[in-house]
């Protein structure tokens, strides 16, 4: 009956909470739980006890792949010189509406 890889330390989970319908889930924090079911419940108890949420996601922290700060330049800077992606780039004559 003893578990195979018994471990005192419960893994860490990242918690994402949808604060109300119509909004996307945002990162609320993290917590420890032995498995996904308990992680959801712990998240409910910890992060929504003041009615902060209507829906919760939990993700094992170890499963998150993050971009690296070292790659900041190659990842994010190239998008900085493409103002034509933004509507303010375009001149529209006065009086033209609904554009």
């Amino acid at each position, binding site marked *: *009956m*003893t*578990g195979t890889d*018994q471990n005192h330390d*419960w893994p860490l989970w990242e918690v994402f909470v949808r604060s109300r319908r119509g909004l996307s889930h945002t990162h609320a924090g993290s*917590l*420890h*739980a*032995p498995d996904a*079911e*308990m992680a959801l*419940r*712990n998240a409910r*108890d*910890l992060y929504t*006890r003041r009615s902060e949420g209507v829906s919760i996601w939990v993700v094992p922290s170890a499963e998150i792949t993050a971009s690296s700060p070292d790659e900041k330049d190659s990842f994010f800077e190239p998008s900085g010189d493409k103002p034509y992606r933004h509507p303010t780039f375009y001149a529209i004559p006065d009086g033209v509406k609904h554009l």
Partner: protein
Amino acid sequence: MTATSVARTAALALGDDALVLSHRLGEWAGHAPVLEEEVALANIALDLLGQARILLSLVGDEDELAYLREERAFRNLQLVEQPNGDFAHTIARQLFFSTYQHLLYGRLAAGDGEFAPLAAKAVKETEYHRDHAEQWTLRLGDGTEESHARMQRAVDTLWRFTGEPFQPVEGLAEAPLVEEEWLASVTTVLERATLTVPEGPRTGAWAAGAGRQGLHTEPFGRMIAEMQHLHRSHPGATW
């Protein structure tokens, strides 16, 4: 709003259940096996205290009822007054009681009696309490050898208190009706948790009755002595 006299008996029974179990769960503060569980147990205790305050207020002044009644006037089940014991005992007590409460409030919410509005809110709370108890029963029962043994011992010890909730109470005709469902539900959880459903009796041999008749177990007297001491030391004071 105050209740009719028949409903008062029932409100007192249900209110005392919630008050006493909330107090017991409050004793866990600072002692839980893991921080996440501090938060979970306190949530349940707060739900129950909220229920107790509403129910006792149907009968009279909530503080007078909680703090100035003698032990024999409390109408809670003996199950809820049982000391916390280890975490397995607390979970077994939670499983037995929250399953009962959930089924009972489900019935009350569906009816058109005086408790229907209260029950509609409580049924959601108790659903979560029951789920919490089920999750832990599974993990302790089907966890390690030690946890299995502790959980089985807790189930066996508390089993003799699980018949009382279904004894007829004035104003609460629904209570006996949920016993079969309770037994089926608890059996399913225990079996999934690889635990054995006890074969022993579910009520004590004392013909005079139990908690609903104001007959309690010895630890209860000490529990309310602690609960009431400060309030009683300052008669008439407001806090």
